[in-house]
């Protein structure tokens, strides 16, 4: 059973926001108007934002620094703990998932997440200029389950899934070909698209996987480690 993890090398990240765009197209994230965005209602499952310059030697380090932030898929996720109906849950492979048909829209998870990775559908999702003709048809569906890029109804919470539908497709392909699924057969869209090849994805339980090896790096750190969430997104410090 793999334990999915992502490593982001901030030394290689050029803050092109390619990950954000790839994620948007892959996962059918709704687009909001500029006035809504000004209210803070834009949806960026994978957000890229500038970091504040350090106080000491602010002039010397006037170089802009950026952070790119998917869901941390915490080992001990505060959002899963507080969900009253189990709409958000952690699966066997450590992915923190979101079931759109179960969610009651109480937004407890959104206030509990210290990383702000969760987004609420304030309105029915909408796309401009025929973009809705080009939505990703992939979805994770079952009895009482709707996940992944499936278009969300209004009033529910959504978040980065590490492209769960890609995992399902990769598994199905392996099964169809009558062989075992290998953890290196699948990466999320942001990893695939990354311009600077700054993102790595794989199985943290496999000691020889790229992510496991990079996690050993002296540059490795995790966001808000002090919050006790044990994120599975691992960053490598800018040198």
């Amino acid at each position: 059973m793999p334990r999915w993890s992502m490593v982001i090398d901030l030394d290689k990240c050029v803050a092109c926001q390619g990950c954000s765009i790839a994620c948007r197209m892959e996962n059918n994230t709704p687009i909001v108007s500029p006035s809504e965005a000004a209210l803070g209602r834009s949806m960026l499952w994978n957000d890229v934002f500038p970091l504040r310059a350090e106080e000491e030697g602010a002039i010397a380090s006037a170089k802009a620094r950026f952070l790119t932030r998917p869901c941390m898929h915490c080992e001990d996720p505060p959002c899963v703990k507080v969900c009253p109906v189990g709409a958000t849950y952690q699966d066997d492979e450590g992915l923190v998932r979101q079931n759109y048909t179960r969610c009651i829209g109480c937004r407890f998870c959104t206030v509990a997440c210290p990383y702000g990775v969760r987004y609420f559908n304030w309105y029915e999702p909408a796309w401009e200029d025929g973009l809705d003709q080009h939505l990703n048809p992939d979805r994770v569906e079952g009895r009482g389950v709707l996940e992944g890029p499936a278009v969300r109804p209004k009033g529910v919470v959504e978040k980065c899934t590490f492209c769960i539908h890609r995992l399902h497709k990769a598994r199905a392909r392996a099964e169809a070909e009558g062989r075992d699924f290998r953890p290196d057969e699948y990466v999320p869209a942001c990893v695939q698209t990354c311009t600077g090849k700054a993102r790595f994805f794989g199985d943290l339980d496999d000691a020889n996987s790229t992510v496991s090896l990079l996690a050993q790096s002296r540059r490795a750190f995790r966001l808000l480690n002090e919050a006790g969430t044990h994120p599975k997104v691992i960053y490598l410090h800018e040198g």
Partner: protein
Amino acid sequence: MKARSVHPDNKHEAIILTPLQDITTIDRWLWALLLGLIGLGGYAYVRQLTLGMGVTGMNRPVYWGVYITNFVFFIGLAHSGTFISAILRLAGAEWRKPLTRAAEAITLFSLPFGVASIVVDMGRPERLLNVISHGRFQSPLLWDFTAVSLYLCSSVVFFYLSLLPDIALCRDRLTDVPAWQHRMYEILALGWQGRPEQFHRLERVLDGMAIFLAMLVVTVHTVVSWVFGMTIQPGWHTALIGPFFLLGAIFSGTAAVVIALAILRRVYHLEESLPLGLFNSLRKLLIVFTLGWLYMMVSEFLTIFYGNIPEEMEVFWQKFTGDFTWLFWAMTILVFVVPLLIFIFRGKDSIGWMVTASVLINVGMWLERFVVIVPTETRPRLLYELVQGTYRPTWVEAVITVSMFAGMFLLYAVFTRFFPIVPVWETAEEPGAEVPPVTRRRRRFGVRR
């Protein structure tokens, strides 16, 4: 059902029953006005339902706003009745008797709007039953759900039981009311006869329930606070939040009782049965709560300030000098400074001043709930320098809030026109005919009559 019953003598009986016999034109206008406000709220809610939660001012990261504030406030208001009728009952405070029902009615009629606030805040209210079919007790929201519904049920039972002898009184005395109204009394009175053993049994049940309710008062509002306290967000994640919420709840609840009593006394001419002394007793309680509130404030903010943890300080400064400066200091003045001065220097024997202070306290306590909830959200833990939330409620939230308060007033106003708002049997000269001596069980719980 032609049961006639024995009723203890109460010389104020006629005055207390007067409001039940004649619904005035003013009443009808008031009810119509309140219904109109509720209708407006309904319109706003339908808009929110059809268009989406986007019609509110909520956003990311301020995911909770006025609705959750209302939820906490209404549940807090509900603590008035249970505090006065349960805790003061156990404490043997006899003076509480005339005002128990007026206070309990506040409990009964504000609780439903606390529950409604949560439903209004939900993005998919039609999935409410998921909480039952897929409920997870790991979530503090489920604790809330359980605590509040238990509280609602037991308050209804407690209220109804203590109303029983008076419904029977209405059944027997009010013979010239419309037939349906009399029929209602007949059914609701459950054939009460007022025999001494009935009164005795009633007292025993009420004593027992009072113990249970006293525990509920403490747990319910603590659990409400845990919705915030159990998260790791700065400003919410403190062990003090439970006791602080509880104190605030009893504080605003007791202040609400003062307002309700003053209105009832004036409108229904109940000066005799609701004497001035009641206000003086409540004044003493309120002084204690005002000072308790200061104690909580100092404990909370001095700890945060001295500890100087960066993310906590972000929220701290938001309140003291940031976006919420006005609300924060207005709250302090409304809840603490002005009411305390009024209580000490003007409140004695003055209903006008007591009501002024109580109104200020309730406005201030609503602000307090708001200032506890929102500033924390505007400064999330990750990168608070970058993600700085703002929140401006829209007219939809305002209208729904107003309509909820209107709903509460309406229920209260209608109730007072159909049931005696001062408990006739409890304030009778010789309570409950002849009540047999204290039994063993009572002594075991240390309950005094």
